[in-house]
């Protein structure tokens, strides 16, 4: 499963990361090394082993469906790079 440059470009696209050409080739060599370290685990037999997602096998705790947050719209909008009339602004999506 050797990675190629086009795989790096595709993964970067999936993750929405802009990488320059030099960054891509560096990512290829380093990620290839990391994956070969990771692949050590392929040697161990895990047939019949249940995957473990969480140290205690705990399941998600549920709470009552009630409002717990107060309205902080103005405070939160202040953190955004671009807002107008109480809305987050992004580049035009529809022509």
């Amino acid at each position: 499963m050797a990675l190629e440059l086009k795989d790096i470009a595709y993964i970067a696209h999936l993750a929405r990361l802009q990488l320059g050409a030099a960054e891509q080739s560096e990512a290829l060599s380093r990620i290839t090394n990391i994956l070969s370290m990771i692949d050590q685990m392929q040697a161990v037999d895990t047939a019949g082993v249940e995957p473990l997602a969480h140290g205690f096998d705990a399941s998600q705790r549920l709470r009552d469906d009630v409002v717990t947050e107060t309205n902080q719209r103005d405070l939160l909008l202040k953190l955004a790079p671009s807002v107008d009339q109480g809305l987050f602004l992004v580049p035009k999506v529809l022509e």
Partner: protein
Amino acid sequence: MTSEMTPKMNDALKQGVAELARSLARKDFTSVELTRAYLERIDQHNPELNAYVTVTGEQALAQAQAADQARAAGTAAPYAGIPFAHKDIFCTSGVRTACGSRMLDNFIAPYDATVVEKMRQAGMVMLGKTNMDEFAMGSSNETSWYGPVKNPWNHTLVPGGSSGGSAAAVAAHLCPAATATDTGGSIRQPASFCGLTGIKPTYGRVSRWGMIAFASSLDQAGVLTRSAEDAAILMQMMSGFDPKDSTSVDVPVPDYLATLDQPLKGLRIGLPKQHFAVGLNPEVEKQIRAALSEFEKQGAVLKEISLDNSHLSVSAYYVLAPAEASANLSRYDGVRFGYRCDKPVDLEDMYKRTRGEGFGDEVKRRIMIGTYALSAGYYDAYYIKAQKVRRLIKDDFDRAFREVDVIMGPTSPHTAFPLGSKTKDPVTMYLEDIYTIAVNLAGLPGLSVPAGLVNGLPIGLQIVGRDFSEAQLLNLAHRFQQATDWHTHTPGV
């Protein structure tokens, strides 16, 4: 504001949390005097060490003044007025919370993390926010957008990471204690490299609410201090169930100070043979063996054990942690908060350049590994496989804890390494956490305690216990510190 530090305040800066509480109660000095002394010392040494990224002097003095007034009125909480620092991963209302990243360089947190709120309630005085690896991804504090931190013991060496700023600040007496977080060793390894006591509690023991997420099934908050007693005091403040964190565990918090002195007779200590194998520096091993014999002298019994799958922990971790990170860090999109690239031409360009420019190399690498491991066609081979290995690792610990009460060994295979020596090869950096990572995968509590010096540099003994055995770990570390003086050695700065 330059003034000669009086001998009295000079001495105050050497005191830990427990001692400061007594000094403040006796009115040896006020919290304002103490806070001023710390701010001066930070002014003097931080430009060289780079341990703090933000110093909150004004707020600190206001908190100190409030503590002094409460003390005068007889209403002060026991640890009110004691200064400390927060790792810059905890959201602090009104104060920049950057998590070591350009992405959050302009982020003023709109609320307090639960840990921050608890420390505030206790009257503790926040001096500032400490440097860290970007999004806690690193073992040397060299991935920070704010530059590396220097190890106070030797300024050409790393302090460890990711909680490198917290460790350097405590070791250099720029604060008596600091909060920290640990996803694969980020409290314990810096504790080892800087000669400190560092505890990563059981997963779920301390609320993660308001703690910026890296890998949510592994992240846990703890502290870096200069003694086990101080760690016990702070863990008491920070721990407990929090309905706002859905993975917080509703188990009562025992009185950690009450059991610090318990005798160790009959304690069974397991020594994983894999942690004393090839790769461990022989001088470090010698010191660790000497530390273990101290426990034997106090009545403990040593027993070799095997953690058969421990060699796979780094492999499994570097699938699971990046997978969780790739999901957690998808929130940084340039829309609601944080960095946004200049003049985006369309939405996709905005996402890609915002994230390409806002994240550093290591963070991007881990997001890509995680994205790959979770992508169609690779999910079973990587993600599910790693979760199965995680089960094997957890089973190893369960088996070991049927034979022994705690597990001990070195925290790190060596002492602090030179700045820049491992940044070219991520895999050698990842192997830094070879003894600590399995503990996070299993959710167990772990503690590192200073256990010797090798060529003048500190090393740490790691103690791992069963779920929710923090009281026991603190007890063992405290007993060790009653019998040895390794934790009292400090760098000259």
